[in-house]
């Protein structure tokens, strides 16, 4: 008699391939499990990438999900992270075509997923700077909110994301310049926001752990811009801690 492991292996094989042997009856009902499994995967993926799904339509999204699943089957009983590899998959799958921007859109949406469930720390205000001497300012390192994700794309991906919050949105001109911006959680949802390139560079450097002086230098900020940029991170409650 077949072992439990063999029975489950044959059931799994029959879920992947309708012609595989499996000692169950009625055999045609295996298709219900096959469909459930595919639908559960696709639904979870679709929830992670609502704008991409809306942009490409349900039929093409179904095809993408099927191909993605063939290459990246679920490795967990928790489907929430099933979209983790979708953007890299799209990079490869769409390589060289006219729709490579979809991979960047997927990357942005995945950041949104990550941000939505990140832990939120209490923010500190600009008054924290008064604890440091003027000489220490350029060596200060900022801990930013764990939900913060920064994105740069060769495509107008933030504009595409914003335009496709409704069904049947007109296409965005892909020849528009690339964009950069941030994704971060707020108490009432996740914010997706385009940033000026210099603010993006500055935030990227701070986020990577660079001291303030280096972040300012990398971003090429002059004195008035520095004051604005410093004000920005505190006003947006992005700073959790500051250390010399």
């Amino acid at each position, binding site marked *: 008699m077949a072992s439990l492991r063999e029975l489950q292996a044959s059931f799994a094989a029959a879920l992947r391939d309708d012609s595989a042997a499996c000692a169950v*009856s009625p055999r045609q009902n295996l298709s*219900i499990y096959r469909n459930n499994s595919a639908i559960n995967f696709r639904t979870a993926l679709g929830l992670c990438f609502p704008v991409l799904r809306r942009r490409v339509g349900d039929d093409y999204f179904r095809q993408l999900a099927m191909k993605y699943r063939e290459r990246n089957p679920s*490795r*967990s009983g928790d*489907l*929430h992270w099933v979209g983790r590899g979708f953007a890299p998959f799209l990079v490869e799958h769409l390589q060289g075509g006219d729709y490579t921007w979809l991979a960047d859109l997927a990357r942005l949406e995945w950041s949104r997923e990550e941000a939505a469930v990140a832990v939120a720390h209490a923010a500190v205000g600009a008054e924290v700077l008064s604890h440091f001497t003027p000489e220490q300012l350029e060596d200060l390192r900022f801990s930013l909110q764990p939900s913060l994700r920064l994105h740069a794309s060769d495509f107008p991906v933030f504009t595409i994301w914003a335009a496709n919050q409704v069904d049947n949105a007109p296409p965005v001109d892909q020849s528009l310049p690339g964009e950069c911006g941030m994704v971060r959680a707020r108490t009432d949802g996740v914010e997706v926001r385009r940033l000026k390139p210099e603010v993006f560079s500055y935030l990227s450097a701070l986020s990577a752990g660079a001291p303030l002086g280096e972040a300012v230098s990398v971003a090429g900020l002059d004195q008035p811009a520095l004051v604005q940029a410093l004000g920005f991170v505190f006003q947006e409650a992005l700073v959790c801690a500051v250390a010399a």
Partner: protein
Amino acid sequence: MHGPIPAAAGIGLRAVHHQALIAERPPVGWIEAHTENYFHEGGSAVRALERARADYPLSLHGVGLGLGSADGVDREHLLRVRRAISRFEPALVSEHACWGQADGEFFNDLLPLPYTDEAVELLARQVGEAQDALGTRLLIENVSAYVAFEHSHLHEWDFLTAVAELSGCGLLLDVNNVFVSSRNLGLDAHRFIEGLPAERVGEIHLAGHSRNGNVLIDDHGSAVCEEVWQLYRHAIARLGAVPTLIEWDTNIPALSTLWAEAQRADHLLGELRGLAA
């Protein structure tokens, strides 16, 4: 924080109802949440559950452990369940008598087990290990089935009873699943319920199903049908007043509709108490 789950009707908490539940606070006896939906450290879902559990006794119901998988149980998943238990302090924790993975691939569905001695031993062992890891007794739920293994030589109710006796777990009787499986596979639904050890049944689930040709599909997408309500009457007449959950996972209606279903279950539980008085 609330105490034990009362022998009353509760509702399955879904994300679309988070705000309504907190705002309207319907007088349902308790709530049940899918454990995997609250694995994250932050976010609106965990905040909503933290608020809701201040108003209602909570049960956590897992769908992803696949405790009957011959390849074993995902230790990382088990750890996440443990963290959720520690964070939300549920009064009940439940999972399914099913398997879900083979050769590293997870199918994210509640796959049926063959009802054999080997499967009894494996499921009981892995339920026992999970209980030890989680520090709590589990209720194990019967799943809807669309196929039966030709190797099965035990009745499903005897299989569940044996698993409960060996592992010390309790049972969660899903009356809709009994109905769906009985229609799909020609089982005797009443005999199923009569075959369970009453003292081990700690919770009942009720839900709707759909029909695809001759097959009933357990989709939790509609109201509980009359035949399932009748079967539920039979179940509580035999098992006594057991905490009863209304589940609704697809085509989810307004919270008030779930509450109305819960009130019907409460009415039947009340009738039962009246008979017993």
